[in-house]
């Protein structure tokens, strides 16, 4: 096993006036496991397209991850999809991005715009072969992956952005590829890559997409560990043991909570330098301790991080506040959602006498619940999580 990690993200824009999207992305695996991502675009729009795309993506995802040969998968779809009463065909285009053993990318494409592959920020022209399966022309490619490869699949709504409005013939796949290269930064997450392209599609459509538009990206990156400590241990004698374990881990270190910061400051023999900079009025200011990457207040900041996490998992939200803001919650959100692949939580169970005031909305149960909900969200983002209690 190598140090590579597959990160995924997608964004769909619905055709104006439709509440259901006719494109569908289905995923299985990812992280350090094999990944299958299927982007299907059903014929037409609305409910009918949504059903076609859902069936196609779900069937392909399940069958391919079960190791069934592609011929069988495609013929299953051909004989399963309901026939459209208007057009007398059963039809959904699809793109399959399949990463195996953290080593090889397999791309299978049928009638979607060709997947864009960026290698170190440059366009990578991967080999393609065509074959006929159940009367469909299927493109297949396989190539070894490298760190910083980005695979971008899209539905034709992206290509046609701006047809007859801002442009005569739409945006075309090649100009999307140029745009992706021009906006490439090694630190862009899979989801922000999708956001950059779908925002531009939306702009070209004048804010009213004429077709369902979906961008899905797979980014090959290296693993990165973040360690977060919150709360002092239940027994004061465990302070040193908790700190030893926390600081022995490789990766970024985040300390949450005032009392916890005091424990860290004592352990490192370095002072806490607090700022009074309220860049978000709801979030207490951050501090600094030499030897720690980020020091913030505890429960209020983490509640905000949880709210950001829930927003982030809602695929419809585009530009989140936390991507640019400088308050403690935004800084933690960026570190956990975008940079981290593995996160270790060190949770102290000490009861803070300050929080036992009935007028204050913080109780120990709330703190436990907060960590539980946050780790659940992070797991849904595909992160490896470990929680240790002290």
């Amino acid at each position, binding site marked *: 096993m190598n140090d590579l990690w597959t990160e995924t993200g997608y964004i769909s824009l619905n055709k104006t006036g439709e509440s259901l999207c006719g494109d569908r992305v289905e995923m299985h695996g990812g992280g350090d496991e094999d990944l299958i991502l299927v982007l299907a675009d059903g014929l037409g729009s609305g409910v009918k397209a949504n059903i076609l795309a859902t069936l196609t993506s779900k069937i392909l995802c399940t069958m391919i991850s079960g190791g069934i040969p592609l011929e069988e998968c495609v013929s299953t779809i051909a004989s399963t999809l309901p026939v459209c009463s208007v057009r007398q065909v059963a039809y959904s285009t699809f793109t399959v991005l399949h990463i195996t053993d953290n080593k090889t990318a397999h791309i299978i494409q049928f009638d979607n715009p060709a997947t864009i592959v960026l290698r170190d920020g440059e366009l990578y022209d991967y080999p393609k072969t065509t074959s006929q399966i159940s009367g469909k022309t299927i493109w297949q490619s396989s190539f070894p992956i490298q760190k910083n490869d980005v695979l971008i699949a899209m539905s034709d709504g992206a290509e046609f952005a701006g047809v007859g409005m801002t442009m005569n013939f739409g945006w075309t796949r090649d100009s999307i590829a140029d745009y992706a290269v021009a906006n490439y930064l090694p630190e862009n997450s899979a989801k922000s890559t999708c956001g950059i392209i779908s925002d531009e599609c939306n702009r070209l459509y004048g804010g009213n997409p004429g077709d369902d538009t979906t961008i899905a990206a797979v980014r090959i990156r290296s693993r990165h560990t973040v360690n977060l400590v919150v709360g002092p241990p239940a027994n004061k004698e465990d302070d040193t043991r908790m700190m030893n374990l926390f600081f022995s881990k490789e990766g970024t270190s985040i300390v949450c909570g*005032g*009392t916890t910061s*005091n424990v860290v400051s004592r352990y490192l023999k370095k002072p806490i330098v*607090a700022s009074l900079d309220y860049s978000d009025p709801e979030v*207490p200011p951050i501090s600094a301790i030499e030897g720690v990457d980020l020091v913030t207040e505890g429960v209020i900041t983490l509640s905000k991080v949880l709210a950001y996490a829930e927003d982030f998992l809602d695929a419809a939200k585009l530009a989140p506040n936390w991507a640019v803001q400088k308050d403690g919650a935004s800084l933690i959100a960026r570190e956990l959602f975008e940079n981290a692949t593995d996160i270790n939580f060190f949770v102290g169970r000490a009861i803070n006498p*300050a929080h036992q*005031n009935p007028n204050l909305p913080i109780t120990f149960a709330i703190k436990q619940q907060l960590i539980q909900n946050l780790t659940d969200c992070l797991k849904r983002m595909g992160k490896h999580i470990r929680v240790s209690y002290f």
Partner: protein
Amino acid sequence: MKITICIGSSCHLKGSRQIVEELQRLVAENDLKDQVELAGKFCMGNCQNGVCVTLDEENFSLKPEDTKSFFENEVLKRLK
């Protein structure tokens, strides 16, 4: 002179931001930026009361609405 305001969780909920902003405003209004330094500090361990504020090692417990009288009665008096 140094005024330290607690920015920990419970003081935050009790209004430390309003106190910080009010003090920043009062210090600027009275042209005291060279003489008064404002700083933040995490939990000072006296959370059961109001927002913890220390003025040259002496502890105070403030509510946001007390800020002005604190500034006039304690800060300005000591500077004279």
